[in-house]
């Protein structure tokens, strides 16, 4: 069977996030960005461990969590397949929003903010707007 691998995982040893969580996040992110679609097959456990040199149970645990979240489902003997999407209808809005964000980033750099300040400002604003939303 000639099957292209749709996504490849990578691990950041210094992130402080456990390897299995990193795999879960990478799948969720790919679903959100529309890189993975319903019906796509995730890499097999053997493919992942052979690429990353990680414990097979790490991959199984990640896939099980994604299964519990209703995002993928295993077909015994074949592999694990995407059964849902996280992007919904919002994907169309990504382009324009990204354009606006790029313009905003250019403005921030113009104003003298470095990457670290930009990230801090973004996170801080994100957090306070989330708090306002709750209040």
């Amino acid at each position, binding site marked *: 069977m000639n099957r292209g691998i749709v996504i490849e995982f990578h*691990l950041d*040893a210094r992130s*402080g996030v456990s*390897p299995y969580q990193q795999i879960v996040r990478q799948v969720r992110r790919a679903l959100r960005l529309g890189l993975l679609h319903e019906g796509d097959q995730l890499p097999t*456990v*053997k493919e992942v*461990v*052979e*690429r*990353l*040199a*990680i*414990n*097979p*149970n*790490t991959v199984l645990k990640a896939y099980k969590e994604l299964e519990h979240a209703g995002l993928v489902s295993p077909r015994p003997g074949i592999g694990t397949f995407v059964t849902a999407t996280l992007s919904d209808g919002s994907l169309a809005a990504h382009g324009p929003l990204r354009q606006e964000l790029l313009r905003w980033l250019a403005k921030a750099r113009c104003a003298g903010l470095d990457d670290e300040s930009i990230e801090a400002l973004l996170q801080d604003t994100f957090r306070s707007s989330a708090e306002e939303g709750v209040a």
Partner: protein
Amino acid sequence: MTAAIETAGLTKRYGRRVALSECTLSIPTGKVVGLVGPNGAGKTTLLHLAVGLLEPSAGSVKVLGHTPAEGPEQLGRVGFVAQNTPLYAAMSVTDHLRLGGWVNPTWDMALAEQRIQHLGLDPHQKAGTLSGGQRAQLALTLGIAKRPELLILDEPVASLDPLARREFLRALMAIAVEHGVSIVLSSHLVADLERVCDYLVVLVAPRVQVAGDIETLLAIHHRLSAPRRDGLRLPRDWEVIEKSDTERQSTLIVRHDEPIHDPAWTVEQLDLEDLVLAYMSRAAGSGAQTPTLVGAAR
């Protein structure tokens, strides 16, 4: 369920020197087990006891429910890759496979040849002219082609460069998935094993310091820090593995089965390397230090 390796009071003495003392372990099957300890910690001794190359001085060891090397069947169940991948320098890759076929009744020649091909090794090349990484891969092939239930590897990556090390561990993990084999491998570096293992045994001569499922170990060890106070009293059920004080701050590594919510302490997660180092330094500085700490905790 039968344990992969089960020991009770296992002890090995060489003359008057105790290499392994009172080792009691129960390692489940289906795991990739990392055996970690500094050089001279007794790792090789423990592994040689498990494969039957050594006899215990006291205590017992069972491997997959049987006495090590008790007969041909048991020899077939356990694959062993010794330290420094001993191969016959003048023999070719193919010769090694043939030899494996002669001495192992369960030998899977198709599997062996397929792996050699997959690795891109020249079957006619003499083992003595292979690179370190290729020699390790050949030794691994010999270990797995007898189709064991348990594969034991003594410091398999110690002498390999980082790339060959990664290649070797990738192959080993693929084998774990494909053959469902239990794996025990030793290393003096926890960083080598962190990603591939799900069970850890820390050995510092001559005793096992800690052993268990890595996820569980990480969940029950906590790094606590707080402003330093005199006359500090800690709960009785906290086992202090490491304690260090500066003029202003106390930092502890504590073993406690439950999450710690004491607001007096800032609680942080440990990573595996810190956990192993804490046990190693406790063992290295034991005697004088450990009892004082335990005393202080009461």
